[in-house]
């Protein structure tokens, strides 16, 4: 059974200019030990999908339709109290800003121990002991000294390791990492991602890796979901997607990756046009206005996500 199964999820936010549908009719699933990468540009709905899973959409946001099943249990039907027991326990999240994601006035060890005290009823002493082990597990040198330090004494990479330790504390079934390496040095990025990947394989947890870095995807993801304008364009195995991108948007993305062995001085290839204004979404496919292969019907109705072998794709050309 999948760890997470999202079906027909639609999320909207109340704004001064009316309701904005950030995620529309989105379906995806992740299996145990699997890494699913969710890629897309800013505003494509990838982060909102993550926050919707945790039901942390804030006052203005709401889930309009669809279901989110965690190991068979529908999260959209739970009360707020029941959700607090799931957050950090069965689902945990890693944010993109390690520099500011730790509370500056609490010692690192106590922060890593907090979910254990919160969810597993450990005492602070037991929690700190486990925190020590967890910090060692994420390869932080000299964890005995680090647990007593304040966050500002740690480097960015070490803080992100501490965040990962905190996320792993309760052995969650699902880990959501929202651009976990965007704020880090390139050299540290690879270490952090390899660590995340190893730990998920080891514990059998599922990992959702939200990113806009296709290089990261190629190396660490098992499957990839491409989002655009709040909708899923294409979902496929990472290897298949790279070898044979089918959706015009996916192809555009792939062509935009600068190549090391291309001609020197060649202009970077881009996708023409602007992302859609989600307050006034186009009636048809959100990518249609920028699509070089659009047909008449693309602008009239949204193409449904269709299964094709091991791949899901939402494009009229793909029949």
């Amino acid at each position, binding site marked *: 059974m999948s760890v997470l199964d999202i079906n027909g999820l639609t999320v909207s936010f109340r704004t001064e200019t009316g309701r904005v549908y950030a995620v529309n009719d989105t379906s995806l699933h992740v299996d145990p030990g699997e890494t699913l990468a969710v890629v897309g540009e800013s505003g494509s709905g990838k982060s909102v999908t993550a926050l919707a899973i945790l039901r942390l959409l804030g006052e203005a946001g709401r889930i309009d339709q669809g279901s989110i099943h965690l190991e068979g249990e529908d999260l959209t039907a739970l009360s707020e109290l029941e959700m607090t027991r799931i*957050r*950090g326990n069965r689902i*945990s999240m890693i*944010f993109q800003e390690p520099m500011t*994601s730790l509370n500056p006035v609490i010692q690192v060890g106590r922060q890593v121990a907090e979910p254990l005290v919160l969810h597993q009823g450990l005492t602070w002493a037991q929690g700190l002991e486990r925190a020590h082990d967890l910090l060692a597990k994420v390869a932080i040198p000299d964890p005995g000294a680090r647990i007593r330090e304040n966050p500002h004494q740690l480097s960015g990479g070490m803080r992100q390791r501490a965040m990962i330790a905190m996320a792993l504390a309760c052995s969650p079934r699902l880990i959501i990492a929202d651009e976990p390496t965007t704020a880090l040095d390139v050299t540290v990025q690879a270490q952090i991602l390899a660590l995340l990947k190893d730990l998920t394989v080891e514990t059998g947890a599922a990992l959702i890796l939200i990113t806009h870095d296709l290089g990261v995807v190629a190396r660490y993801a098992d499957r990839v979901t491409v989002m655009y304008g709040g909708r899923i364009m294409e979902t496929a195995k990472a290897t298949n997607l790279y070898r044979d991108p089918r959706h015009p948007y996916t192809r555009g993305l792939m062509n935009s990756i600068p190549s090391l062995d291309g001609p020197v001085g060649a202009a970077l290839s881009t996708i023409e046009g602007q992302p859609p204004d989600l307050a006034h979404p186009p009636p048809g496919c959100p990518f249609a206005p920028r699509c070089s292969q659009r047909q008449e019907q693309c602008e009239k109705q949204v193409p449904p996500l269709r299964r094709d072998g091991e791949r899901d794709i939402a494009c009229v050309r793909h029949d």
Partner: protein
Amino acid sequence: MSFLKRLWRDKKLGAIGGLIFLLFLFCGVFADFLAPFGENETDLSVRLLAPGWDYLLGTDHLGRDVLSRVLIGAQLSMVVGFLAAGLATVISIIIGVVSGYFGGRIDMLIQRFVDAWMTFPDLVLLIVVVSIVGPGMPQIIIILGCLYGIAGSRIVRGSVITVKESMYTHAAQSMGASTMRILVRHIVPNVMPVVIVLFTTRVGATILAEAGLSFLGLGVPPPAPTWGSMLSGTGRTYMYMGPWLALAPGLCLTIVVYAINVYGDALRDLLDPRMRGVR
């Protein structure tokens, strides 16, 4: 330790203010031992003596020792200052945190109430309330605490809103921390720099306000030797025959409030993270 070092290195004036404040605090705490005479001990044979060796700060029209009265006055000022400022701080934290964290309609309601409250001039409000409940130390402390607490909640609220939007608050939510836990463990400790500065400056403000009330005869009732009542009673009546009567409490008041304020300013500069590394 490193904080005290930084205070001394970067903020000399503030450090000196802090020292003066500590000195007065010490005098207040040990006033009963330091005072050479009882503060209400009268001896008509030594009326209105100028400062000299027997009476370091002279005597008043009833032959009471001014030094003893100023020392006990310091004690009263410190008690009122600390208790009222403490109460004000607690009120500011509660209102500021609730208003800032929950936001929306709750915030709107609370802030309009605070707006309305702040439109009344402090002194007018104080005079009205004291004339209703009557003068006395506990009343004064509660009134001053409410007055400054409600006004100060604005500052705490602003800080809470900043902390609430921080990543670590979101991270704590994503970890399954309850609202109460987030408030106590994540919000309040991170607004403490602002709260400490608020408390310090409020001590000065409440001491001054209490003196003002006592000067108007609405403060701690006589014969308690508060600085305010010493200024207005004997100080004013005998201003020409015994200028030291007004000078002693007046100078004490000025020095203490000034010292607290420069110390508070120094604290604010040092505790404000944006000021790190800036002289």
